[in-house]
């Protein structure tokens, strides 16, 4: 331990046990516990206690205090601290000698005090015990002290945190007690298990037979955690012993604690111990799938289908359950119910599903949203069921969307009821569009594409579609445009796409003029993505350029909403990169005459919001990276102009992005900083067009060093870090530069260094002035950039978080309180 901390500890401990001095801030105590944890993990706790006897004194003082004087925070801290020390066996014994542990964790300790009613204390007690229970001695202590019984009752604690921690500790104790005993003999019967384990199992058994749902839930939660964490052979014995009780729960009407039951069965099924087929488990799951309500079976069916090993029959049943609501929708709306055989087996559950769908709006919406979300989750997984009924799913989703927008015309009475329930339901619309988007994955039947395009267009056209629905619809359109299958022998766009695009662009134009900014924003984002992927496609270019979309996007650079301006900047940047921007003769905007660069520079210099300015710097960086025509005309002027604006920006992200721009520029002029990066796009190797001294001189003229040095002392750490990396790169690149003298005029260097020192302390008013490359190099070499880099790599609160500072804080607070007390008199 740091000697300074050791010195502060006694005072700190005495403050904690002084009833007159309350520790106001318990986050300090939490941080100190973290620190103690690292200290105890790194070395001997016993040694620590021997070197700092004040810590043991603290624990015994806490016990000696009058019950009314004990602060719950301090007590909880002490309990957790004691547990941490006792995690090491020798230290545990040392503390046991003084009966300290029994005092703290035994029945006569805080358990019986009034302060036990405070949840923090109960939580500290459990956590302390959990730390302590790491060795056989600890385990015996738990058994002897009556703590296990206390844990049983804490499972039903009013504080959810305490209840959950109690359950977890029971699992921990069970696992620990079985760890040594059962290792040698995997088939050890339950009756031969250690007493502590038997006690816990007996309690679980009793709870499973209870008539109160709460107790059953507690038992199921303990078992779920056990099977989730412990994968030793004894868990198989445990399941063999308890599975009849669990199966028996299914005989009750209604089945109690269904959520916890589902979790348990899935946890058991996931355990590698049960990789070999366990018939009873699969039978129980199959029974559950057939007897629970559709809302309850959904998560079980999904979990079953995600399992790596599972009987095929059960998988089919689970998939049938998951598809049931969609099949019911298809039947009710007189659509084909899907491939034969897929849904026939589960007709029994069908009436229950239909009942749920028709019972109330909330039940119908809840079930459909859950089903769609489950299928969306299942679709991309490698273990998703095969054959995947793509056509059925697409048709079901399309009909759901039609029910939502009121365009479906079912003839059955159930269909009409569904129509009334789902009409205008935004939640279902969103879920259906989300799922429809993912349905492009693995789609092979391109015949589905027209009906999907039709419903997406209708959704986009409908004035009733809310902004969030429109956003989802745009995303789905993007998926279907980019990933939809094309018939063999067709061009990249597929046969339906050009027609669809021609209908899509008028709708996009309308949304770009929407009075709702969210809609304008989504439309611009959609445009950006679309042109990013398809900017090179002749068909797409033709339709886009024939529309007013580029012109409208340009006009949105002046939108009153900053998010929209930012999206417009990104969209225009993208369009311009692809040569798709509007002709610059738009009336009413004199700025347009200056071209897009001028417009974006205008935004960068005058926009009052950060988002558009950030977007501009990102676009400029991309342009520079991709050698945009407007940039390559005069790259140096471009970079210098941007930096001039960025350097004074109040938004740190803009400044950081400015450094990114410089980085790209330097990579192009001096070569890649890290050519071995496996993810880097292989760019043609740049050979500096001119000798290094001249490059450096140009950099000086462009005031890149001025910018980088300023950023180095930026008050925002990411900016400083980036600047530091940049300067290191520059220093390394210029190291072999033999054309320059080792140092220029030493007085110039001294003056630069003096200015930089002032900048470092926050006085950045004075400019660096015009710099000579020699002076810059000398200044760079004299700086400890590596040291700065490692300092910046530490989190900004590393000083405040140091244990020394924490201890001082606690002491200072108390001192301040004392002063205040004195003032009162």
């Amino acid at each position: 331990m740091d000697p300074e901390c050791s010195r502060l500890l006694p005072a700190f401990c005495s403050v904690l046990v002084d009833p007159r001095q309350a520790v106001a801030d318990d986050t300090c105590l939490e941080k100190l516990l973290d620190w103690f944890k690292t200290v105890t993990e790194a070395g001997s706790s016993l040694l620590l206690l021997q070197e700092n006897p004040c810590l043991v004194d603290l624990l015994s003082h806490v016990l000696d205090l009058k019950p009314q004087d004990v602060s719950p925070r301090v007590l909880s801290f002490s309990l957790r601290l004691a547990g941490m020390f006792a995690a090491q066996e020798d230290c545990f014994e040392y503390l046991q000698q003084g009966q300290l542990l029994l005092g703290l964790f035994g029945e006569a300790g805080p358990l019986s005090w009034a302060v036990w009613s405070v949840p923090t204390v109960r939580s500290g007690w459990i956590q302390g015990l959990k730390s302590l229970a790491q060795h056989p001695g600890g385990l015996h202590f738990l058994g002897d002290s009556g703590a296990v019984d206390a844990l049983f009752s804490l499972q039903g604690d009013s504080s959810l945190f305490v209840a959950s921690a109690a359950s977890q500790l029971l699992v921990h104790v069970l696992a620990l007690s079985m760890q040594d005993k059962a290792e040698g003999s995997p088939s050890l019967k339950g009756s031969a298990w250690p007493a502590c384990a038997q006690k816990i199992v007996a309690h679980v058994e009793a709870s499973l037979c209870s008539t109160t749902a709460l107790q059953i839930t507690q038992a199921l939660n303990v078992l779920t955690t056990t099977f989730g964490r412990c994968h030793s052979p004894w868990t198989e014995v445990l399941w063999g012993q308890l599975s009849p009780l669990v199966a028996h729960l299914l005989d009750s009407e209604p089945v109690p604690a269904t959520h916890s039951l589902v979790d348990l069965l899935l946890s058991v099924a996931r355990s590698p111990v049960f990789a070999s087929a366990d018939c009873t488990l699969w039978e129980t799951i199959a029974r559950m799938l057939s007897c629970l309500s559709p809302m309850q079976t959904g998560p079980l069916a999904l979990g079953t289908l995600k399992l790596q090993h599972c009987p095929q029959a059960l998988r089919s049943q689970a998939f049938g359950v998951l598809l049931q609501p969609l099949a019911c929708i298809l039947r009710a709306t007189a659509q084909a119910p899907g491939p034969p055989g897929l849904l026939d087996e589960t007709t029994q559950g069908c009436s229950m599903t239909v009942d749920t769908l028709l019972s109330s709006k909330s039940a119908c919406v809840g079930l459909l949203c859950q089903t769609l979300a489950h299928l969306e989750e299942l679709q991309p997984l490698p273990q998703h069921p095969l054959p995947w009924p793509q056509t059925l799913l697409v048709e079901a989703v399309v009909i759901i969307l039609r029910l939502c927008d009121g365009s479906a015309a079912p003839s059955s009475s159930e269909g009409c009821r569904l129509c009334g329930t789902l009409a205008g339901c935004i939640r279902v619309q969103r879920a259906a569009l989300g799922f429809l988007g993912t349905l492009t994955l693995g789609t092979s039947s391109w015949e589905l594409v027209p009906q999907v395009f039709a419903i997406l267009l209708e959704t986009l056209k409908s004035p009733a579609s809310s902004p969030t629905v429109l956003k989802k619809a745009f995303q789905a359109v993007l998926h279907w445009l980019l990933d939809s299958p094309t018939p063999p022998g067709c061009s990249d766009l597929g046969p339906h796409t050009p027609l669809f695009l021609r209908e899509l662009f008028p709708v996009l134009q309308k949304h770009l003029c929407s009075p709702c900014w969210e809609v304008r924003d989504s439309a611009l984002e959609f445009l950006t993505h679309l042109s990013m992927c398809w900017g090179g496609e002749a068909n797409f270019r033709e339709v886009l350029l024939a529309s007013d979309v580029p012109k409208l996007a340009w006009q949105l650079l002046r939108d009153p909403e900053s998010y929209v301006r930012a999206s417009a900047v990104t969209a225009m940047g993208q369009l311009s990169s692809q040569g798709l921007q509007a002709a610059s003769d738009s009336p009413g905007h004199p700025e347009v005459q200056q071209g897009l660069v001028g417009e974006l520079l205008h935004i960068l210099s005058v926009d009052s919001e950060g988002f558009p300015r950030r977007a501009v710097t990102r676009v400029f960086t991309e342009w520079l990276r991709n050698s945009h025509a407007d940039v390559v005309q005069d790259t140096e002027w471009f970079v210098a102009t941007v930096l001039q604006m960025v350097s004074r920006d109040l938004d740190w992200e803009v400044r950081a992005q400015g450094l990114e721009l410089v980085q790209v520029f330097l990579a192009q002029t001096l070569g890649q900083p890290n050519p071995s990066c496996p993810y880097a796009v292989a760019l043609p190797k740049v050979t500096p067009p001119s000798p290094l001294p001249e490059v450096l001189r140009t950099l000086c003229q462009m005031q890149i060093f001025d910018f980088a040095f300023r950023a180095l002392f930026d008050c925002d750490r990411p900016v400083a870090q980036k600047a530091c990396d940049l300067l290191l790169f520059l220093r390394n690149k210029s190291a072999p530069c033999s054309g320059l003298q080792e140092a220029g005029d030493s007085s110039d260097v001294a003056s630069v260094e003096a200015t930089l020192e002032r900048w470092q302390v926050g006085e950045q008013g004075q400019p660096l002035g015009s710099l000579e490359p020699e002076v810059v190099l000398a200044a760079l070499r004299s700086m400890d950039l590596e040291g700065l880099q490692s300092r910046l790599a530490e989190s900004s609160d590393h000083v405040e978080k140091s244990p020394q500072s924490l201890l001082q804080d606690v002491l200072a607070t108390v001192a301040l309180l004392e002063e205040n007390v004195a003032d009162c008199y």
Partner: protein
Amino acid sequence: MMALPYITEHTGFTGTVYATEPTVQIGRLLMEELVNFIERVPKAQSASLWKNKDIQRLLPSPLKDAVEVSTWRRCYTMQEVNSALSKIQLVGYSQKIELFGVVQVTPLSSGYALGSSNWIIQSHYEKVSYVSGSSLLTTHPQPMDQASLKNSDVLVLTGLTQIPTANPDGMVGEFCSNLALTIRNGGNVLVPCYPSGVIYDLLECLYQYIDSAGLSSVPFYFISPVANSSLEFSQIFAEWLCHNKQSKVYLPEPPFPHAELIQTNKLKHYPSIHGDFSNDFRQPCVVFTGHPSLRFGDVVHFMELWGKSSLNTVIFTEPDFSYLEALAPYQPLAMKCIYCPIDTRLNFIQVSKLLKEVQPLHVVCPEQYTQPPPAQSHRMDLMIDCQPPPMSYRRAEVLALPFKRRYEKIEIMPELADSLVPMEIKPGISLATVSAVLHTKDNKHVLQPPPRPAQPASGKKRKRMSDDVPDCKVLKPLLSGSIPVEQFVQSLEKHGFSDIKVEDTAKGHIVLLQEAETLIQIEEDSTHIICDNDEMLRVRLRDLVLKFLQKF
């Protein structure tokens, strides 16, 4: 409102019409515009031969399907309008109007337009609410008063939205988007509309939108013979506006932002396309003008002027007319047509919420609301769904509302009330006998103290007047209770009667005192003692009977 002159001027109507002030003023403007549009283009003759049924059935639809064409009338004149309006008595929200003492009528804000009202018609024990065009949306008028509709026996529900599937917010968005899109492409926008109502909200939306959409340099023209009055009237009806707009008046600021649009020359209004308008007219522009049917008014000129160019757009916002029928005479038409009907009246979801909130015992509504629209028969959500099911009616059907008048309220004069001595016969129930004169006038009933008996001392002949007054004898106490036969018999025996025989009859019992040859007939509401001229015996027996009864 628009049909009022036909009722007051052509049917012999002699009653009073009640309406709120904005209804009268705005109604006058709407009628004035209509009359102006019609009178502007006088017809030399009017065709009536087609009304002959044999000819009518040969005409194309919809003319051949029109009903009762013989009763169709010409448009009224301004004199008739003024005469009709002169019969209106102004009322304010929550004002109670007594109608012949039978019922009390109260207008309540319906939230749909300036001064629009729902009505409560109530007696002392019955309440009927009449809900006409109402809106729960936050627009310019005072919000709908729902609380006062509670505890209704019957709620008559009319005037729901004509386009239940069109959400007004979505439609306003659609309106703005299409307007901006047309203007940005260099086209003009024509909005056929009424001179009052939704136009105030549209102008407010545009006020917020035009700057953001880059439309600040585009002129908005509002052309109507009553444009000026409509824009100005809307600003002075502060007490009829929603809270936000009311509070602006105290700042003081005009409640509607169209004042600022006018001030900054962004919105210009003209009585017609002639005169100043033709000098100021600049394109591209947005024109609001009537009539929304496109059959008369200045809108006709703009349809002809702009119809040939696909750059221009006509946007229909009024739900009263089919836009396809309105456009029929102008076909073929190159200009774009957008239909975004903005109807802020209650939709079925809102009705369902309203009924849950107000909980009337019965709902009465037009037949159309009890089934889905014919074109969307599967939309079960587009009908009124309530318990008990609504009672429906058809055009011109006379309905008996499902309640009976069971009680009448009668007032008791204070001096009479003072003389009453209530007696508690059961916990919480007291009775008192009243002798009084019931005075009924204007359907109000009052109990007055009876006149004092005539002074016998005068010795004169009774006055004629007192013939009308009922005799006021000394009142005997009223009796109540029942006579337990067994106990009564025991009591008789105790008082020396013997040889008593009891017979059960259909209505009660007969107690026979054979020795005394006397018969006591005890029934539910009467007891008779029948004895042979032995008054002493009768009185003895009477007193024995009375012991079992309560007097008050």
